[in-house]
C-alpha cells in the first residue's frame, strides 16, 4: 500500500508573537520540512514616502523617526545627511561627534531589543527583562538629550537641535562602564548554552552568493562572511576618526549572526567612549543661515536674523535642483535616502532604502529545506522591523 504524499500549506501571522510585528508567511510544508515560504508584507504600510513629498524638508524629520522605530537616530542621520549633501552644507565637527555618540548608543539599544525578543522566541523569557533593563538606561540618555525616549527628533539639517546637557557625559560613561559586565553575563548565559546553540547552529544558513544577490546588508550580511559596513566602506559623520572592528561570521547561520551582533555592541561602546574622550568644542549646528535657524539672542539685535528666521519657519529650505543618495549603517544594515529636488521647498521624491526589506527578501532562501520551528529563529536572526519593511 502506498500513501499519497501531499504538501500542507499553512499561514503564519500576521498576528503571531514571533513575527516581530505584522508579518505573514505562507508556508508550504512536507511533514515538518519547509518546501516554500512566501512572505506577505504591507500590513504596516503607511505611505510615508508619499507623505514626505507634501511636507517641507524640515517637517520630514518627524516622519522619518517612525520608519525604523527602534533606531530613529540612524533614520534621522541618514535623512539629514541626504539633505545636507543636496545643499552642500558642512556639519560642524562637534555635531558630527554627537551624532555618532547617539547613533552608537542607539545601535546598542536596538541590538538589545533583538537579543531580548530572540530570547522570548526561544523560550528564554528572563532575557528580555535583562535586556530591557539595560535598554532603559539608553532611553534615559536619549531623553536627557532630546526630551524623548523614542522618536527623538533631535538631529537637524546641518547639525543637532541643542548641545549635550551637562549631566549626559557622566551618565553615559557610567552606563558604558557597567555595560560590558552585563554583556559578559548574557554571553555566559547563552553562548555555551546547549539549547541556544542547537537552535542556532546550522540554522537558517545564508550563503555569501545569496546574500549578495538579494542585496542583504548589516549583521545579516556580515554573518555570511562579507565585511561590508557602510561606516568603514564610505565613512560618514567622522567615523574614520574612530577605531573599531567589523566582526564577521563564517558559516552564515543564525549563530554567526548572533555572535556578530554581540560583538557589535562591544564595538559600539568603544566608539562612544572614543567620541566622548575627543569631543571637540564648537558649534553644534551649521552657521549657514539659509539652512539653520539663527540663535535666539541674535533675533533681538539683527534684522537679518529675523528675516532668516521668518523665511526658514514659513517656507523652509530650498535645496538646489538635483538628486542624491546618502546611506548610513543602521543596526539592520544599509539605510539609504534617495532624494530628488526640483528646487522648491518640498522634495519631489524621497525614497527610503530599507535594510529590512532586502533582508526579508532573503528569508525564503534561508528557511527552504529547514524545519518549521526554525522559521522563528530565522526571523529573529535577521532582526526585522516591520515599520522599515513596509514604510
Amino acid at each position, binding site marked *: 500500500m502506498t500513501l499519497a504524499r501531499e504538501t500542507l500549506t499553512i499561514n503564519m501571522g500576521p498576528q503571531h508573537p514571533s513575527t516581530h510585528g505584522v508579518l505573514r508567511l505562507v508556508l508550504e510544508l512536507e511533514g515538518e520540512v519547509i518546501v516554500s515560504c512566501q512572505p506577505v*508584507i*504591507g500590513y504596516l*504600510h503607511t*505611505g510615508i*514616502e*508619499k*507623505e514626505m513629498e*507634501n*511636507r517641507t524638508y524640515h517637517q520630514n524629520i518627524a516622519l522619518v523617526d517612525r520608519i525604523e522605530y527602534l533606531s530613529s537616530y540612524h533614520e534621522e542621520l541618514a535623512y539629514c545627511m541626504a539633505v545636507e*549633501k*543636496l545643499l*552642500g552644507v558642512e556639519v560642524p565637527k562637534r555635531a558630527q561627534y554627537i551624532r555618532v555618540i547617539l547613533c552608537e548608543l542607539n545601535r546598542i539599544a536596538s541590538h538589545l531589543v533583538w537579543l531580548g525578543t530572540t530570547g522570548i522566541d526561544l523560550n528564554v523569557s528572563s532575557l528580555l527583562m535583562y535586556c530591557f533593563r539595560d535598554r532603559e538606561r539608553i532611553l534615559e540618555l536619549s531623553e536627557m538629550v532630546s526630551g524623548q525616549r523614542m522618536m527623538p527628533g533631535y538631529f537637524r539639517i546641518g547639525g543637532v537641535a541643542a548641545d549635550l546637557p551637562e549631566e549626559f557625559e557622566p551618565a553615559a560613561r557610567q552606563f558604558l562602564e557597567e555595560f560590558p559586565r552585563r554583556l559578559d553575563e548574557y554571553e555566559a548565559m547563552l553562548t555555551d548554552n546547549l539549547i541556544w546553540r542547537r537552535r542556532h547552529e546550522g540554522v537558517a544558513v545564508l550563503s555569501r552568493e*545569496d546574500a*549578495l*544577490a*538579494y*542585496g*542583504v*546588508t548589516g549583521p545579516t550580511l556580515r554573518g555570511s562572511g*562579507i565585511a*561590508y559596513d557602510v561606516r568603514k*566602506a*564610505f565613512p560618514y559623520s567622522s567615523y574614520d576618526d574612530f577605531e573599531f572592528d567589523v566582526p564577521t561570521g563564517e558559516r552564515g547561520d543564525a549563530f554567526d549572526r548572533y555572535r556578530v551582533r554581540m560583538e557589535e555592541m562591544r564595538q559600539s561602546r568603544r566608539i562612544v567612549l572614543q567620541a566622548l574622550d575627543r569631543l571637540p568644542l564648537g558649534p553644534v549646528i551649521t552657521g549657514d543661515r539659509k539652512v539653520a535657524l539663527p540663535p535666539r539672542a541674535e533675533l533681538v539685535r539683527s534684522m537679518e536674523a529675523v528675516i532668516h528666521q521668518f523665511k526658514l519657519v514659513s517656507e523652509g529650505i530650498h535645496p538646489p535642483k*538635483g*538628486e*542624491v*543618495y546618502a*546611506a548610513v549603517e543602521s543596526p539592520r544594515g*544599509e539605510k*539609504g535616502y*534617495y532624494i*530628488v529636488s*526640483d*528646487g*522648491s521647498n*518640498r522634495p*519631489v*521624491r524621497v*525614497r527610503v*532604502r530599507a535594510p529590512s*526589506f*532586502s533582508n526579508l*527578501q532573503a528569508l525564503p532562501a534561508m528557511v527552504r529545506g529547514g524545519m518549521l520551528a526554525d522559521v522563528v529563529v530565522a526571523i529573529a536572526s535577521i532582526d526585522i522591523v516591520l515599520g522599515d519593511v*513596509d*514604510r
Partner: protein
Amino acid sequence: MSTALTPVQEFLAERLGPDALEAHAFRGDVTVVVDRERLPEALRWLRDEPWWFEVLTDLTAWDRYPAEPRFEVVYHLLSLRRRERLRIKTRVPGHDPVVPSAVPVFAGANWFEREVWDLFGIRFTGHPNLVRILMPDDWEGHPLRRDYPLTEEPVEFRGHVPKVPSQIVPRVPPPGEDP
C-alpha cells in the same frame, strides 16, 4: 556638475554608444542614463568583471509628471571590491510604462520591481511574479504617482467631514506650469 567622466561612465558611453543618453555627477554621485532597451545588458556588464557592481542596493522610480518621458527608474549599484557606488537611470514614457526586468541579473530586484509596479504602475517585462506588494491586492491606482491625490480616509464616527486633498496640503504646481 563635473565634466570629467569616471572610468565606468566612459566604459558605458563607449559600449552603448548613443544609447547611453547622459552621464554626469552631482555632489559625488555618479549617474548614467541608459536607454531602457539596453538596460539588462548594461546591468550585466556592470555586475561582472572588471566592475563588480554585484549588489543592487536599491531600485526605485520617480514621477516627473507632467513632464515627458514621465518616469525615471533608478538603480543604485554597489561594488564591494572597488568601494564604489553607481546610479543607473532609465526613462519611461507615461503612455507605455514598461521596462525590462532586472531579476535575471539581480535576484534581489524581485521585490523592488513589485514595489515600483505597486506604487508607480510601471511594468517589468520578464518579472516572475509582478503583483502588488505593499498595497492591498484589490487597490486601484498607484499611490506614488504625482497625480494621485493625498486624501483622508473616511472615519467611523460622525461629525467629521473628510477633507479634500487641497485642504490638507495645497498642491504645488511643478515648475513651468501655471498655478
